[in-house]
């Protein structure tokens, strides 16, 4: 009876030790988790910066196309892209961001991505999220009379181009590792992204329609449209690759960024024309450069790219025929 009254008698020091021990354990676990999170964030941010650095040497420079070795990861990764038409550091040319994350070994869960790495002087065409163990890169120059910049396309997936025109086939085959050519959509690997040229099929992931029938057109696909799900993206020249590989929002954002770049380059060439005129080298394209600058700086969407492209083409003809060429042009 006496025993029942006293019950279980736990010394105060025990209770104190249990409470203090629990707090210490909780703090230790919390600190470790935070430490792992911070380390991962740091590691992923570093990887994104390394991808940015990898992009510098992959521009083709004066070559027509360039395809560097892909980056292979040990496990499934996610590379996240975004595009901004303007930025604090470079208000006129905007910026793009890259962030990175990978699948955790424990529980197959995706970790939170690391910090955004900003890129101001590149035009990256990719989906918002590229997921896989391999990241493929390719680069082609984009001309509007003069060279505007290089279009860099990034993808983690394999693409199957079905019945592309010979110009694209020649440009792609054996150069870009993640693009295969096929003469029918059924012959494509089932996991490939199927890009159908000139026809639509339920198996096609996107369709390319060329609409260049003008006398000055080298082929039908020089300008046209890429129809991806419910989005239509207009392209001109090598922007075709941008439209195929990019998310529509990133594509349209880069069109505006490239428009600003074209406008600035037009001003540079116009002022150069005025400078060299004083040395007896007179140019005939000053007015064309002026109107190209005005129309490219106000470009609203890819719908305007055709007009810009044909205006630049007319200017290019005049420049090529002139004794005093202001820019070297596509054939250099």
């Amino acid at each position, binding site marked *: 009876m006496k025993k029942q009254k006293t019950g279980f008698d736990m010394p105060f020091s025990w209770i104190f030790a249990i409470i203090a021990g629990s707090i210490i354990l909780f703090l230790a676990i919390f600190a470790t988790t935070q430490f792992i999170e911070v380390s991962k964030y740091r590691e992923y941010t570093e990887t994104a910066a390394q991808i940015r650095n990898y992009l510098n040497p992959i521009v083709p420079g*004066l070559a027509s196309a360039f395809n560097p070795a892909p980056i292979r990861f040990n496990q499934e990764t996610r590379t996240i892209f975004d595009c901004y038409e303007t*930025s604090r550091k*470079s208000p006129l040319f905007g910026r793009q961001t890259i962030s990175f994350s990978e699948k955790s070994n424990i529980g197959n869960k995706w970790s939170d991505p690391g910090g955004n790495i900003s890129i*101001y002087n590149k035009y990256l065409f990719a989906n918002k999220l590229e997921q896989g163990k391999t990241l493929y890169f390719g680069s082609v120059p984009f001309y509007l009379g003069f060279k505007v910049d290089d279009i860099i396309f990034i993808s983690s997936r394999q693409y199957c181009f079905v019945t592309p025109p010979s110009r694209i086939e020649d440009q792609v085959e054996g150069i870009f590792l993640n693009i295969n050519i096929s003469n029918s959509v059924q012959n494509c690997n089932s996991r490939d992204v199927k890009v159908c040229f000139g026809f639509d099929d339920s198996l096609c992931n996107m369709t390319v329609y060329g609409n260049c029938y003008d006398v000055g057109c080298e082929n039908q696909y020089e300008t046209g449209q890429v129809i991806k799900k419910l989005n239509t993206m207009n392209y001109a020249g090598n922007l075709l690759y941008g439209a195929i590989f990019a998310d529509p929002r990133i594509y349209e954002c880069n069109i505006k960024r490239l428009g600003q770049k074209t406008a600035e380059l037009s001003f540079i060439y116009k002022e150069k024309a005025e400078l*060299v005129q004083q*040395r007896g080298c007179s140019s005939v394209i000053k007015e064309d450069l002026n109107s190209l600058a005005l129309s490219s700086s106000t470009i609203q969407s890819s719908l305007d790219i055709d007009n810009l492209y044909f205006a630049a083409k007319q200017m290019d003809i005049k420049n090529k025929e002139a004794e005093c060429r202001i*820019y070297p042009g596509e054939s250099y």
Partner: protein
Amino acid sequence: MRKINKKSQLKIQEMSFMLLALILFFVIAGLFYISLSASGLKKQASILQQEQAITLISKLANSPELSCGKSLCIDVDKLLVLKDRKAYQGFWDIEGLRIMKVYPYPTQEIECNAGNYDKCTVFTIKELNQSYLEEGTFVSLCRKETKDKIVYDKCEIGKILGGIKIRQ
């Protein structure tokens, strides 16, 4: 009873001090680790930034804003225009950018403008205003000239120099 209470109070005090010391130890060790890792992080960030600048500078001569159309050839006429265009200040992610004539000019630096382009030695596109390290590569510097009404490209030897910020 009083004796037991005093003894347990002493034990609690001992334990509290022990815990306090333990926590203090972990805090100091943690701070030490964080400062070490922060310096490692700064170093890594600096290495990546330098890597980015070096790879960029080597390709910059072929960029549409500078190129004369041939490999590693810079258009001097474009440089004269580019000098005054503020839009490019944040475009290239480097701390500074200048192009120097190497030969046959004297070592003294004479800033170029439209009036002295044939006698000057340096084109500053982006001012270097921080502690920096200059990385560079040799290039041709070409400009349009006319002689007897014939237009030709006059080329000289130059060097493109990009500034890289060094983190202390």
